[in-house]
């Protein structure tokens, strides 16, 4: 398998007035194509910052970040925006759907920023994906008419619509009850099975067990890097395609 992400000695400092806070203090690891990695840590450990760096939302203070073999630190803002558009799909803890906008339009939002996008094709693809996550009948609904689990499923489809190689999920089950959470994990696992690389930030042991590899992070440094010996299949692997 080829290396998708290669981080070397990444540090990140934040300047608040006179005080400099080091959030990441030299983080190095590689993630291969097709992995399912959970990043675990307490709040303030730097896991969210790490996620933002990987997703090109932020730049490290020092270190090296190669994505698909390309040195990303040399890229300008517009190029990074293009990377976010084409190569990464974000899933957030609080879904971040646009209110008063239909499910379908929410899902199609990332296509707005894709250079070469056939809207008809994207729409067909979006409908197909929404059907797959069981929301085929809710295309014209507004987010506030959906349950939390349904909203997160819409957000997952939105992350997929530009067909990115990498899915970044920031506490995707954090706002959900365990049943809905399981459904979300089930979808993520099935996406991983299809070959998509997934990086998920979580602080729940239970959720992290669904990944194939767990990075424990503490005080801005990698504490442990474990391969999950016995990956737990969400809902007993009952997911039907």
């Amino acid at each position, binding site marked *: 398998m080829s290396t998708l992400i290669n981080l070397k000695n990444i540090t990140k400092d934040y300047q608040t007035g006179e005080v400099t806070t080091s959030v990441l203090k030299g983080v190095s690891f590689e993630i291969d194509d097709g992995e399912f990695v959970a990043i675990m840590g307490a709040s303030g450990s730097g896991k969210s910052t790490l996620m933002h760096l990987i997703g090109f939302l932020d730049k490290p203070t020092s270190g090296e970040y190669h994505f698909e073999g390309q040195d990303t630190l040399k890229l300008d803002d517009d190029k990074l925006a293009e990377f976010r558009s084409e190569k990464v799909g974000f899933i957030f803890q609080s879904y971040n759907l646009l209110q008063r906008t239909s499910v379908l339009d929410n899902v199609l939002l990332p296509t*707005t920023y894709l250079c070469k996008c056939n809207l008809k094709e994207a729409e067909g693809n979006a409908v197909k994906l929404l059907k797959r996550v069981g929301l085929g009948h809710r295309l014209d609904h507004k987010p506030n008419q959906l349950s939390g689990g349904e909203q997160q499923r819409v957000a997952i489809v939105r992350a997929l619509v530009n067909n990115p190689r990498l899915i970044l999920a920031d506490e995707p089950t954090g706002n959900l009850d365990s049943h809905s959470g399981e459904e979300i994990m089930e979808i993520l696992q099935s996406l991983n099975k299809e070959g998509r690389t997934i990086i998920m930030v979580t602080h729940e042991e239970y959720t992290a067990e669904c990944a194939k590899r767990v990075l424990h992070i503490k005080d801005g440094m990698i504490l442990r890097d474990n391969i999950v010996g016995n990956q737990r299949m969400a809902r007993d692997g009952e997911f039907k395609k």
Partner: protein
Amino acid sequence: MNIFQTIKSSFTNLAANKARSFLTMLGMIIGVGSVISIMSIGAGAQSLIFNEIASFGTNLVGIMPGGSEEDAPPASMMGMVITTLTYDDAKAVGEIPYITAVTPYSTGNANISFGDKIKNTTFLGVTSQYVNVEDNEVSSGRFIFPEEDESTARIVVLGSEVKEDLFGEDDPLNKRIKIDKTSFIVVGVMKKKGASLMASRDKEVFIPVKTAQKVMLGIDHIGLIRAKIDDEKNAPLVISEIRKLLQQRHNIKDPKKIDFTVQSMDQALDMIGTVTDALNLFLGAIAAISLIVGGIGIMNIMLVSVTERTREIGLRKALGANKGNILTQFLTEAMIITFIGGLIGIIGGSIFAVLIAKIANYAGYEWDLIISLFSIVLSFIIATIIGLVFGIYPANKAAKLNAIEALRHE
């Protein structure tokens, strides 16, 4: 970036806050509407003045006392009393070829009374040819006879409204009335001329010019000479003939010292046009200020919108929007507000202008409805510029937001 999706999402956002979007637009609607309607009303008023003047006939030439600069009104129009024109000048002008009728004017204000009825009015001292010069005629009795032109006969012809006020339905002919303290015999009543913007002839009375000069005013000069030409195309020739004649009569060698002004109706129209154009532009500029106020309203609301939608901006950036995309989106929203507001303003302003024209027409004025393409294009261009200028600051503020901080924003 897909511009149609951006426009669609802008409409969704504006529709989500219907009341707010409408109130924001209102500034634009009022601004554009007032520019359109004021410019139309200005043009209508201008047409009214033009029609009024043209109703005297465009083949008229006026001679006013006092010299003037090219295209500027003569000093006498500014209220100065200049005594250089005389009755004999008028008489001599009447000899010039192509001139079919000529009359001097010697005007003043007086109280006119009959019995216990009293009315302040303007008397016009004219000659018998007045009716030919101004295309007027008597409805009963007679006008001043040519034999009376140089007499100081105490006869008076009443304007139709004066007759109504003093006599009502009664026959005024051969009745004695008083103009100030002098007694006059009514010999005729003029036909009704109808509504008029300037001095209405219906409210005036006519007496022989010599009577006005000697008896009423005690002066030797006259205020104005009007001559009628057989055909408009002869106007330039006649004007130069009049100049030559009067220069000779007044014994003037140096053209800079010419003490009279000869103007054709066309020239007068041009002059008035210049003045009213400037006035219209001035009023339009005042109306345009409300456009700027409307623009500030848009900026204000867009700033609120940026703050409210900070999270959305963060999300859009996370999903691949660059600075330009965010800028475009907020600018698009500002532009949509200005465009729709401008469009409604154009329609509303036009409706208002039509209403004003209808009311003026109903009141009997010759008011033309003029909604110029210029005013529409102008206000649309101003609206567009305002949308851009006042939209760019909030849009830029949105574009510069840090994605991560924006996403954390509550």
